[in-house]
């Protein structure tokens, strides 16, 4: 039998992490994702006790969270090994909905910084008002010509969920911005 070693989206054995002054950038490899769609006019389900949030918002319930991705569509998240069949678990919670596994399609990079540094970084990274990204806000937008979900988990924490195939480019874009803001080399 071939002895296979799982790699992260950035092709390392362990999740990558780097520090640029007060800013820390880390890869999160333990996030399970599944998209959930309900037909127009249908009643919202409550998978894992979650209240599926309104436009541009995140809702949390114990170990799970959900963020709005489009009309009648949400992404359900849980911190757990991606080897689990998360979509099946979501489908069991909301059998009337269309659920698709998304864990292997995305990479999640977490940025931690003090509030003023976070605001300055956001102003450079995406073309949206940084002050509109209050905690528990989620937006889908473009960053360096890549499509990303930007999730403001708290005042000092921001998650970027982008295409897994762009993982290196997304890391490069975020690391370069964080380093330049601190006059450091990447």
């Amino acid at each position, binding site marked *: 039998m071939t002895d296979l070693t799982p790699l992260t989206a950035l092709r390392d054995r362990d999740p990558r992490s780097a520090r640029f002054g007060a800013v820390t950038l880390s890869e999160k490899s333990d996030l399970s994702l599944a998209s959930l769609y309900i037909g127009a006019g249908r009643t919202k389900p409550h998978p894992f006790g979650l209240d599926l949030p309104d436009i541009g918002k995140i809702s949390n319930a114990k170990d799970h969270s959900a963020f709005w*991705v*489009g*009309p009648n569509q949400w992404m359900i998240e849980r911190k757990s090994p991606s080897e689990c069949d998360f979509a099946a678990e979501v489908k069991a919670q909301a059998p009337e909905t269309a659920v698709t596994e998304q864990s292997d399609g995305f990479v999640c990079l977490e940025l931690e910084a003090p509030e003023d540094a976070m605001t300055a970084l956001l102003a450079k990274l995406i073309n*949206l008002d940084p002050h509109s990204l209050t905690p528990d806000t989620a937006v889908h937008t473009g960053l360096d010509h890549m499509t990303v979900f930007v999730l403001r988990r708290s005042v000092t924490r921001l998650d970027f969920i982008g295409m897994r195939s762009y993982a290196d480019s997304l890391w490069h874009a975020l690391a370069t911005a964080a380093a330049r803001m601190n006059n450091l080399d990447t």
Partner: protein
Amino acid sequence: MIIPHPLLGPRDAQEFTYLGDASLMARPDPYSESAEAEFCNYVYLRDNPAGIHRELWFHEQGDRSWLIITRDTLTHEILGAELVSADKLKAGL
């Protein structure tokens, strides 16, 4: 250009993909007697107005909704944006 998304507010036009004239939603009836001529017009002929134009834009780097944008092609001023709802599709608007 900034597009005023009806759900998400002002968004950079780079997040969107342009499809073309909103009249493309009015697909001809393939069973009508004049279907061949109508499809010829539908596929090949477009008005190219200098002024107000209704056009389809797809919010690719966003909520992936289709919008009808009313735009002045002379000034690029966006005069309105609305969601292409299922009802409008059904009505062929």
